[in-house]
Structure formats: structure tokens, C-alpha cells
């Protein structure tokens, strides 16, 4: 494929959704109305087609020339003023094209599903405009060629997320959730900004091709001279990632974000945007390998998040919240894998590959699970409390089997996609346990990961059994006849289910397609991974035990669940109440901030406002004098002009005389 065609493709990937977003925003409310989805579909489908073309076309050529180099860098030179040169660069390498294909593919399916789900909503065009805008921002985020661009679109996806969480902005809880997501993300953004300042100071540039290019000797000199700064940079970058990817203790916004429409939860808060943090850390691997401390922090925070979120998910009754905590937990898994790169240079690539592969498979099965929940919710008249319905498997057969496929993939049932990716993560953690300087640390993390995997299988199938098994029971909101999803909702579910089942088998460790493709990314190298039969057995056992426990408790003898609940007492309360994180944060962070804010308000009212009002009155006072001159009498005007000219002459004369 010629270079110009490639450039066109790359501009079309973000360009098509952006065009769709603008057109829908302009014409949606008046002209398109119920037909708005067509434009959105068209835009995203174009982007998806171009992403696939990019995926297949560019990299082989790039491989041949220089395996570590990006395939394409194209820029639009915005303005060049003096030494200031502002360019908008798009940059694609293997990691980018995988992300692009995944993002646009899932987005397309979610947009199709959304047109059924959002049917009859008064904000129908607004929904599709925001989704298109999100796809544009997300594509630009992964296509960014510098930290600056990445940051701009990091904020843009945050904005889209805010708009979509608060989609039903008349509902107070939705508005509050949107605000919470935005504010919590600001903490992460602060980290990312600090990282950018430090990178600029250390490297003198924000371009990936310079900051992340470990090949040059000059780069290595910079790294050698600034080891502490590099660690600080990596910690700041990770703080940014923690905000966006909802890691402990910044994870509190994600469950609340479920106030948005379910397709949005599937797209933004499960499959794509929340993985941006993982993408950022994976992208910055060349920096992280020089900061083992940061890597240990990444792994530790990931493990803590995974465990806490899984424990919280155990006792939630809101189907979407179970999925939300599961997302947080799975993101923790990805970070654990990224941290495991600390084991040694030869373990970097497998660890990053494992994280990216889990990100990839997770996108499919988690989007599937969310859409399945959405389908249930749609049919149950917007009731999502699992205690109020059960036994849906006969009423909603398509939703049932697709949900089962997603749940099995999430639980890690072989040979579904989640099995392979989770197995890869366990493998890289076990490598950290047996190699490198931090064996004990990684041994603990490995144990946490295994425990979390058991819990994952348990809570996933708990949700599945509670929803689809047991006696048939519908809430009164569902009406007399709960209905199966319409085709426009069912088809995306089926496609995602097929992908969740097969994608791990097709591109996973059995064929090495994913890992050998991803290896052509800056900072990664070609490796020859082998299968870990022992771990695979362990994974299978984990999945089986979790599922069996859930089956026993929620299908065979529900009394056992009650008994376990009573016996666990405190722990149950903790899980049910999300470990009181919201409350803890409220007392520790929010309340002091509130008091500080109240103080600031009074300071602002009295001192600042007083000063500002005084300054504001000053111009008016000052303008009294000239205002008097502007009386409208021409003679005065001419006199002032003459006086001014004379004053100028006098000034020049006396200045000359002084010399």
C-alpha cells in the first residue's frame, strides 16, 4: 500500500467519527432525530475498516525496515512562529493498530446495540454525537505521537465520559456520578501533567520517538544521569493511569459511573477508555524498565485493587455494579502483569504482552457482559437488582447464552479468551516469583492473583446463576411479558460472544499471533514464549472451583448462601458496603476539603472579592477623568490632539537636551 493511501487511512480513522459527531450535533436535534445512529455507524464503521487495513497493511513493511520503528508518522503543521513549531502528529505502530482495531470494533458493536437500547430516548441524537466524539478522542489518544497530544485527548475522553455518565442529567445521582468521575480523574491528570513537566525538563521533548526511543546513546546518557527523576516520572505517569483506569484508591468513580446508559458503560467504562491507563504504562515501558521501584508500585497497587474490587463484587446485588467492580479488578490484573516486568530484561516483553493481551480479550468479554446486562435491564423495565428477577434463561435465550459465554471467559474457563490471557498474567507473575530481586514480593502478588481469580469465577457465576437460573421471577416494571432483545441488540451480543469464545484460541499463546505482532512496538522485543501447562492446570482448577462454589450456593442449595452470609458477618457487611471506601474518602478527604473550601469561600467573599471589587471599581474611577474629556465637543478634541503633539515634541526636545 502506498504511503499516501496509508496517510489517508490514518486521517480517516479519527476523521470519520469526528465528522459524524459534528454532523449529528448540528443536524441531530432538528433533522436526523431518530435516524442519528446511521451517521454514527457510518463514521465508526469507516474508522474500523481503516483500522483493519492499517493493521494488515503497514506493519510488515515496517518490520522489514526497522522492527522498533513506528509504521507511520504523519503530521499537520499547524503553525511555525519563530522557534515555536506546533505540529499535530499521528503515529502508528503495532500497539496502536491493535488498540485502534479493538476500540473501533467494540465501538461499532456498541453503537449498533445502542440504537436499540436508546430507542425512544429523547436524547437519542445527543447520545450518538457523544459516542462518535468519544470514538474520535479515543482514536486520537492512541494515535498520539507525543505526550502533549496524548494529554489533550486524555482530557477529551474524560470529557466524553463525563457527558455520557451524566447523560440523564436530570437524575441527581447521574449528575453527581458524572461530577465524581471528573473530579477523581483530575487527581490522576495532575500526575500525568507532572510527569509531562518532568519529561520536558529531562528530555527536552515530549515526542514518543525521542522520549521512548531507547536506541540512541544520547538517550541512554540522559537515563543514566537521571535515575531518580525517571522513577519519579514513572510514578507520576502511573498516578495518571490510576485515575483513568480506576485503581485503588482512585477506583471509587467507576462503579458510580454505571449511572450512564448501559452501552456507555460497556464502551467507555469497560472496554476502552478505562484501559487508557494500562495503555499509557505499556506505552512507556522503555521508561518503566529503568524504574524498578515504580514497577513494584504498579504491581502492588494492581494487586490491591484486584483483590479489593473482587471482594466488593462478591456481595453486590446490582448486576451492573458487579460488572463494574469486576472491571476494576481485571484492570488490577493488567497492572500486576505490567509490574511483573521488574523480574528482568528478558521478562519485560512477556509481561507487557500479557497485560495488553488481557486488555484485548477483556474488551470483548466485558463489553459483552455489560451489553448482556443492558439487555436484561432493558427487558426488566430498567430494574437491575438481581434479587428482583431470576430464571431468565428461558425468556431470553440469546442473552442467556451470550452472557454465559462472557461469564465463562471472565472466569477463565478453557479454552475461552479470558483463560489464555489470565494464564499469561499468572505466568509473568510466576516469572517474577522465580527470577529477579523481588521474589518474595511477587510470591505474595501471585497468591493474591490466584485468590482473586477464584473470587472472579465465583462472583461472575453468582451473578449468572442469580439472573438466569432459579424460578422465573420478573419485577412488575417489566410488564406482563418480558421480551428477548431485538435483533439490533442481539446481533452485537452474538458477535461479541463468538469473539469472546474464540479470540484467545485464534491469536493467543497457541498461535503467538498477538505476541509476535505486538513485539514490533518501541521497547518490546521478539520473544518465543512457551505454554505453561502447570499454570494452565491451576487456572482451570481455579475457574472450576469458583464456578462450583457459586453453583452450590446459588443453584443447588440457596440456603448455603444464606448460611455463609450469616457466618461471614463482618466481612459480608464490608463487601456489601464496598469496604466503606466512599465513607472513608468522605471523612478523610472530602470533609476536610469541604471545610477548607468553606474557609476559602469566606476568604474569597471578604478579602478577594473586596479587592477585586475595588480593582473593578478602579477602572471606572480611572475612566471618569477621560470620560469627562469625551464630552462630544470637537474643539476640545482638537485641543487635546494639539496638546499631545506638542507634548511629544517637548518630550523629544528635553530628552535630547539631557544627553
Amino acid at each position, binding site marked *: 500500500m502506498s504511503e499516501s493511501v496509508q496517510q489517508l487511512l490514518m486521517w480517516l480513522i479519527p476523521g470519520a467519527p469526528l465528522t459524524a459527531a459534528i454532523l449529528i450535533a448540528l443536524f441531530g436535534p432538528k433533522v436526523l432525530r431518530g435516524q442519528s445512529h446511521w451517521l454514527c455507524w457510518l463514521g465508526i464503521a469507516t474508522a474500523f475498516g481503516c483500522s483493519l487495513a492499517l493493521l494488515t497493511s503497514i506493519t510488515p513493511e515496517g518490520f522489514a525496515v526497522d522492527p522498533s520503528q513506528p509504521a507511520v508518522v504523519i503530521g499537520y503543521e499547524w503553525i511555525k512562529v519563530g522557534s515555536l513549531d506546533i505540529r499535530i502528529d499521528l503515529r502508528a505502530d503495532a500497539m496502536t493498530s491493535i488498540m485502534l482495531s479493538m476500540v473501533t470494533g467494540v465501538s461499532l458493536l456498541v453503537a449498533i446495540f445502542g440504537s436499540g437500547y436508546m430507542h425512544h430516548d429523547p436524547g437519542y441524537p445527543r447520545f450518538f454525537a457523544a459516542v462518535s466524539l468519544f470514538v474520535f478522542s479515543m482514536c486520537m489518544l492512541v494515535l498520539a505521537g507525543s505526550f502533549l497530544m496524548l494529554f489533550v485527548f486524555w482530557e477529551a475522553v474524560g470529557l466524553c465520559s463525563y457527558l455520557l455518565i451524566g447523560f440523564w442529567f436530570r437524575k441527581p445521582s447521574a449528575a453527581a456520578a458524572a461530577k465524581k468521575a471528573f473530579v477523581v480523574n483530575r487527581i490522576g491528570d495532575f500526575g500525568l501533567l507532572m510527569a509531562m513537566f518532568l519529561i520536558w525538563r529531562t528530555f527536552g521533548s515530549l515526542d514518543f520517538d525521542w522520549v521512548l526511543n531507547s536506541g540512541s546513546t544520547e538517550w541512554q546518557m540522559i537515563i543514566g544521569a537521571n535515575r531518580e527523576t525517571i522513577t519519579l516520572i514513572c510514578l507520576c505517569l502511573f498516578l495518571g493511569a490510576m485515575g483513568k483506569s480506576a485503581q485503588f484508591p482512585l477506583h471509587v468513580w467507576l462503579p458510580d459511573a454505571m449511572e450512564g446508559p448501559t452501552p456507555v458503560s460497556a464502551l467507555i467504562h469497560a472496554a476502552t477508555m478505562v484501559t487508557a491507563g494500562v495503555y499509557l504504562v505499556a506505552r512507556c515501558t522503555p521508561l518503566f524498565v529503568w524504574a524498578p521501584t515504580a514497577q513494584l508500585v504498579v504491581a502492588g497497587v494492581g494487586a490491591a485493587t484486584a483483590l479489593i474490587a473482587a471482594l466488593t463484587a462478591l456481595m453486590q446485588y446490582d448486576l451492573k455494579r458487579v460488572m463494574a467492580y469486576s472491571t476494576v479488578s481485571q484492570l488490577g490484573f493488567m497492572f500486576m502483569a505490567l509490574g511483573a516486568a521488574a523480574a528482568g530484561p528478558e521478562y519485560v516483553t512477556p509481561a507487557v504482552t500479557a497485560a495488553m493481551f488481557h486488555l484485548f480479550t477483556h474488551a470483548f468479554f466485558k463489553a459483552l457482559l455489560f451489553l448482556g446486562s443492558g439487555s436484561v435491564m432493558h427487558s426488566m423495565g430498567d430494574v437491575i437488582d438481581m434479587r428482583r428477577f431470576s430464571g431468565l434463561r428461558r425468556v431470553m435465550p440469546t442473552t442467556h447464552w451470550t452472557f454465559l459465554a462472557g461469564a465463562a471467559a471472565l472466569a477463565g474457563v478453557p479454552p475461552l479468551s479470558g483463560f489464555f490471557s489470565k494464564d499469561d498474567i499468572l505466568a509473568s507473575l510466576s516469572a517474577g516469583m522465580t527470577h529477579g530481586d523481588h521474589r518474595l514480593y511477587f510470591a505474595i502478588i501471585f497468591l493474591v492473583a490466584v485468590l482473586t481469580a477464584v473470587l472472579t469465577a465465583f462472583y461472575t457465576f453468582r451473578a449468572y446463576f442469580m439472573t438466569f437460573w432459579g424460578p422465573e421471577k420478573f419485577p412488575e416494571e417489566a410488564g406482563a411479558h418480558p421480551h428477548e432483545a431485538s435483533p439490533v441488540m442481539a446481533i452485537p451480543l452474538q458477535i461479541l460472544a463468538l469473539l469472546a469464545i474464540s479470540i484467545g484460541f485464534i491469536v493467543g499463546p497457541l498461535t503467538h499471533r498477538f505476541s509476535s505482532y505486538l513485539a514490533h512496538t518501541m521497547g518490546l522485543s521478539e520473544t518465543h514464549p512457551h505454554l505453561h501447562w502447570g499454570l494452565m492446570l491451576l487456572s482451570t482448577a481455579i475457574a472450576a472451583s469458583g464456578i462450583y462454589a457459586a453453583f452450590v450456593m446459588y443453584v443447588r442449595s440457596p440456603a448455603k448462601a444464606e448460611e455463609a452470609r450469616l457466618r461471614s458477618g463482618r466481612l459480608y457487611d464490608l463487601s456489601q458496603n464496598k469496604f466503606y471506601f466512599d465513607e472513608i474518602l468522605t471523612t478523610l478527604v472530602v470533609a476536610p476539603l469541604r471545610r477548607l473550601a468553606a474557609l476559602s469561600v469566606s476568604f474569597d467573599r471578604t478579602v478577594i472579592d473586596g479587592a477585586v471589587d475595588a480593582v473593578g471599581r478602579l477602572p471606572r474611577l480611572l475612566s471618569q477623568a477621560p*470620560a469627562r*474629556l469625551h464630552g462630544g465637543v*470637537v474643539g476640545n478634541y482638537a485641543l*487635546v490632539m494639539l496638546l*499631545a503633539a506638542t507634548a511629544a515634541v517637548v518630550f*523629544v526636545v528635553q530628552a*535630547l537636551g539631557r544627553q
Partner: protein
Amino acid sequence: MSHESIRTAVQLILPECILIGTVCVMFLTGPFLLGRNGQASPGLRHRWGALALLAIGAAAWQWWHTTPVAAIDGPFLSDGLSFTIRGIVLALGAVLVLAAWNQLDDRTSAECNACLLALLAGVNLTAAANDIITLFLGLELVSIPTYLLLYLPTRSRPAQEATIKYFLLSLFSSAMLVYGLALLYGATGTTMLPEIVELLKATSLTESPLLLIAAPLIAAGLGFRITAVPFHFYAPDVFQGVPAFMAALLSFIPKVVGFTALWRLTALTSRAAAESADAVSTYMASVLAVLAVLTMFIGNLMALRQSNLHRLLAYSSVAHGGYMLVGLLAGGGSSGVPGGAALLFYLAAYGFMTIGAFCILLAARRSGDSIRTIDELAGLGSSQPLAALVLSVFLFSLAGLPPTAGFLGKFNLFLAAWSSGVSGTRWLAVILAMNAAISAWYYLRLIGVMYLQSPQPSTADAPTRNLPAWIATAVCVAGTLGLFLVPQAVWDAALLATQ
């Protein structure tokens, strides 16, 4: 002057010849198309407007095919500066014709369009002048049609008052200018600009005391054009009394000629250009710096007080004159961002945003001439969403906020002043930034009025259709946003002009 040299000179000003030719046709045939009692057939103005646009189009075509050449010997030259100024002026001249279209009455439209074209030609001639005589002629070719244009379209009392004020003060300033130019000739012994510039750079003030009086007088005369305080007094009164298209014209055209002439006489004003230690420019730079500071502050402070939109925009125009003076003073510095280029870029950006603002006030009117008071803007966001959005774009640009040309323009001016290496311009950069902050208050307040206040019941009539004004507005929106999104071409042209 030989036949040959006349031919070369005319070759250099072909676009202006086209405009002046059309002006002659309009003046000569206009009266014959009126009826016996001076009545015109309805719709006659459309034909004159179309002819004016056609002439501008032809001039633009001619302009596009000129290649800038370095200085030559003769009354005119066609260098980068005149190329860029011509481009800006022809583009915005077409916008002004569209804005004037429906504000003219059928009887006088021939003369008005002719005056418009003549003054456009005047601006271009000023930019093409290589000689202080042609420079002055160009300036007067702008002033005299302006008087006519002020008087012809409306005969109301406020308009007459405005016309008289403008006429008297403009004459006064021209007198100061011509006196200054005469003394300049006396001091240097030549009328050719390049020679004057070279002489001024090297001459010490003590050697030629005539310059002591010449330079301030020239600055005062041109200060009137660029509405520098304290030569700005006419602006608010005149803007208030005249139709919207004339206010648009007055906010832009005099500034272009004023700054072009000042740039041509850069040896008078630029400290960096001085070769002798006490060349006249070292003193004049201080005088102009004081003028710039005064202009920015007084323009913005007075704008805060206004409730009439024309007056508000008049003071805003004064303040923008101050910003551009900063660019002029930073010019000739050694940095990578030439102040002259920043000034030219700002002129283009300012033209689109100020003319656009007046155009939308004209296009969105509900009755009468145009929207004139802030109260009439109340609730525009709900009654005319498109007009409110467009006006917001222009106000954002005037306040210097992205994503508009005004942001990039101010940014360039700031960069140029900050990095020019000429002493004192860093202070000007800081003052510029302060003033941009002050100005945001009264621009953004208008947006607040449009979107947050409820409309007054009396103004609920349907807007009058004014298609040409809408087209003019659309062009200005495209310019305002385009200069932000794809600024490189204009920036390159501005750079070319200052080399």
C-alpha cells in the same frame, strides 16, 4: 517623467487602476440612471453592488498574478508588504461591500460604492507608495471618500454630527501629517522613502533639528488613523452616529493605512533600526510606547463603561490599535518572531473579527438599522441561536481566546514583544496581556447577556432578511476560524512582507 517610467509605474499599481477605473464609471454613469426627480428604480443598489464586487474580483485576480519585487526607483513599489496588504484589503473590502449592500439606498448606491472602491484603492496605494508624496496622496484617497461615505447614506442628525466631527478632526490630523512630511523633506532633501529611511537611520538628531518637530507631527497625524490615545476622541462619537457598515469600515481601514504608513517610516519609530546613537527613532520609540500603553488602557477602561454596542466596539477598536502598536515597536528586533509580521497577521485577524462583529449586528437586526445597545442583545441565544453563536465567535476572537484568530494574533504579538530583544518591549508584552484580561470582561459579558438574560418582549419581531450581510458574516466567521486552524499561509505572507 518619461513615457517609459510612467508605464513601469502603472504596471505596479494595476489592481488600483482597475478599482479607480470602476470608480470613474460609477461616478459618471450613476446620475444618469436616476429618474427626473432623483428617484431610482427599486433594486438599483444590487447592480452597483455587483459591479463593485466584480471590480474587486478583477483587482484581486490582477493582484494574485503580481510577484513581489524588491525596492525600485519610482513613485510606486510592489514588494511583500504591499502584496500582503493588498490581499487583506481586497478580501475585507469585498466583505465591506456586502455589508453595505442593503444599508445603502438605491439613489446614492452608485456614489457610495464608488467611494468604497476609491478608498480601497487608497489603502493599496499607501501600501505601494515609495515616496512621501504618493504616501500622502494614498492617505488622502482614503480620507476624502470616507467623508462622502459618512454623509451620503444617512442624513439623520447623529450622522451629520458624526460626519462633521470626523471631517474636522481628520482634516486637522492630515494638516499635522502634511506639515510633518514637509519638514521631513526639509530635513532630508528627498521625497523617496528608501533614501529617507537610510538617512534617518544614520542621522543624529542634533545634526538636523527639523526632525525634532517632524517626527512627532507625523506620529500625531498617523496616530489619528490608528486611533491612538489621545488622537482617538472622534472614534466613539463617530461610530455611534453612523450605520453599522461604516463603523466596521472605520474600525479597520484607517488602521490598515495608519500602520502601513508607520511601517514604511519604520526608521522614525523603530529603536532597533537606528544606527546612530541618538537617531530620531530612539526618542520616537519611547513616545510611541507611551502612546501604546495609554491606548490599550484607555481603550479598555472606557469600553467597560459603555452600554451602546457601537461605542463599545469603538473603544475596543482603540484598544486593538494599542495592541498593534506593540507589534510595531517590537518590529525589527533580532528574534525569530518579527513584530512586523505579528502586526500584519493581527491586522488580518482583527479585520475579520471586527468587521464580522458589525456584520452580525447588522444581519441579526430586528428592526431599524442594526442592533445598537447591549439590552437588545438580551436573549439572543434563544431567539436567534445562530446569530448569537456567530457573535460569540467574534467576541471570543476579540477577547483573544482560542479557537479563533484573535488568540493566535495576540499570541504572536506577545511572543514578538517578549522576545524582540528591544529594550522595554517586555513591559509592553506584560501590559498587553493585562489588557487582554481586562477586555475579556466586557466581551464575555455580552455573551452572558445573550445567553443568560431573557429577551425583552418588545423586540420579538422576526429579523429582517439581509442576505448580503449574512454572506459577509459567513466570510468573516470563516476568516476568524480559518486563521486559527490553518494560519501558516497568512503567517508566511506576513513574514514575506517584513523581510
